[in-house]
């Protein structure tokens, strides 16, 4: 589904991603872990089209997508969430969801004025779908609240529902469980597994080992911009080089 090949990227002088290569297999959850500053978020940003790698290729469904830009990458079906949730804070929760749906007829200026009946029919369907997604993540009651009034955990859930609304093929989740209560973390893990059952491929960055063991089929460890090791979570945790890398920057199984 997605191949990352020798990708390099530097912010000014500091090399954040230094020749990173791995595959994200179809219909699986791939966990991406590594100490703080390993370059995980940077890599996610590169995949999502927000940054152009200085070298290397990113191949999605057989086509190279590096440097395409966010909009075109998103239209290919690669949808992401953000390490710090980015809701449209002044818009109601409902609008945050419906907005995310792809191929909306009424999004063109002329269509919005003169194709009213066509987009209205689509809009009704999208709203029903959004309703069911809200129920799916337990936010139905907050439907009309401005998204900025949500708590941290609710925002994470909203981001997941919003990503689902976009009908992704590949979902990039950057620390979806960071800073939430264990109960919500369980719920998020459950929802991610359900996504995979619906045929979505997931690449998820996380630090929490309990969460990873719930969701990840397979784990890629990054350190200093490179892939250090790949395997199941228990294999990886037993690996000495991985432990050493974490001792440089943190612990395996830190709680964030």
């Amino acid at each position, binding site marked *: 589904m997605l191949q990352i090949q020798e990708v390099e990227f530097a912010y000014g002088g500091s090399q954040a991603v230094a020749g990173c290569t791995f595959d994200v297999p179809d219909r699986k959850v791939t966990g991406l872990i590594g100490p703080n500053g390993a370059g995980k978020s940077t890599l996610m940003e590169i995949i999502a089209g927000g940054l152009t790698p200085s070298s290397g290729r990113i191949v999605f469904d057989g086509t190279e997508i590096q440097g395409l830009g966010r909009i075109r990458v998103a239209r290919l079906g690669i949808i992401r969430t953000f390490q710090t949730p980015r809701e*449209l804070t*002044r818009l109601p929760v409902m609008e945050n969801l419906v907005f995310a749906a792809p191929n909306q007829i009424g999004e063109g200026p002329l269509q919005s004025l003169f194709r009213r009946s066509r987009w209205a029919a689509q809009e009704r369907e999208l709203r029903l779908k959004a309703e069911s997604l809200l129920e799916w993540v337990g936010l139905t009651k907050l439907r009309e609240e401005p998204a900025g*009034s949500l708590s941290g955990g609710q925002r994470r859930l909203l981001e997941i529902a919003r990503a689902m609304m976009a009908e992704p093929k590949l979902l990039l989740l950057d620390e979806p469980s960071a800073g939430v209560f264990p109960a919500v973390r369980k719920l998020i893990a459950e929802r991610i597994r359900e996504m995979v059952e619906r045929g979505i491929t997931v690449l998820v960055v996380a630090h929490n080992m309990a969460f990873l063991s719930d969701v990840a089929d397979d784990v890629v460890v990054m350190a200093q911009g490179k892939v250090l090791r790949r395997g199941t979570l228990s294999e990886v945790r037993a690996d000495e080089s991985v432990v050493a890398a974490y001792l440089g920057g943190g612990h395996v199984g830190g709680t964030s």
Partner: protein
Amino acid sequence: MLYFIADLLALGAINAIMAVGLNLQYGQAGILNFTYYTFVAIGAYIGAVTTMGHPPVPASEETFILQWNLPWPVALVLAGAVAGVLGLFMVLVVIRRLRSDYLAIVTVSLGFIVWDLITNYVPLFNGANGLFNVPYILNGATASEITYTLEVFGVAMVVLAVCVWVVRSIFRSPYGRVLRAIREDEVVAASFGKATTSSRVWAFVLGCVMAGLAGALLVFYVNAWNPQGFLAEESFILMAAIVIGGPGNYWGAVLGTFVFVELLSEIERYLPNFGNGALVGAGRAVLIGIVLIVVIRFRPDGLIPERWLRWYRVPAGGGQGGAAGSQSRGEPRRRLGWPWLGQRSEI
């Protein structure tokens, strides 16, 4: 007194057209255009030179391009179109490369360039002297002053109605939602594949068209146009009206101009002039500043906040629409209160 009210209504309606257009640019699309009045001026000039015909040579020494003699409705449409094209030009220069704070600065400089060009290049629009003897529309040449004023008011209300319809339709449509999304967070909008650039470009252009329409109506009404009438100050005053009325809410924009721009410029007549006429204008500026500060302090979302509008009304028809489409209407008024006080659930 009657004439005074009629004059207030006519100018108010024309200003409201500007406000609705600026509301589309700033309130909806989040584009900070500090030179909106330049587009009003362009509309005014085009409206003038396409209806003035050949200048009466001995009586005046006006020189200007085109010298057409079009029927006024055609001139009106043309004024809107030219302002729109100029807006497209301007926005294509700036929108791709610049963040919105730079955009504001660039709009100011581009406005000064246009102003310089018009005042210094006399063959274009008679330079710094401005245009006068712009013909009346309708039966204005023979009608009484008050009749003409009411007629202009009527025409302006029709144009205003069309503009409000356009902005309202956009506001309630998925296109409007994309504009708001871009305004809230452009990165998020792009991350969901929304056409961020073209969406903003069209909102900007449509806003400029409305400015052009308003400018033409204004010049038909007052029959003259002086370049001093479109200094940067006018754009700032309009912007203040939008902020006070409620950016993002087209009714707020209309209210802001009617109540605020109109009333304050009328109050001007009653301000003490301390023996110096120039101080009156300064007095108005100070008043505007005070009102602005008070509003921003106590009602940061303006007098009529955006959230008072129903977001969407899915048009009637289609049985199951009720469930999802109309809940925003059935929802109790509670959610119209202050933001951030919403209920939190247990999660």
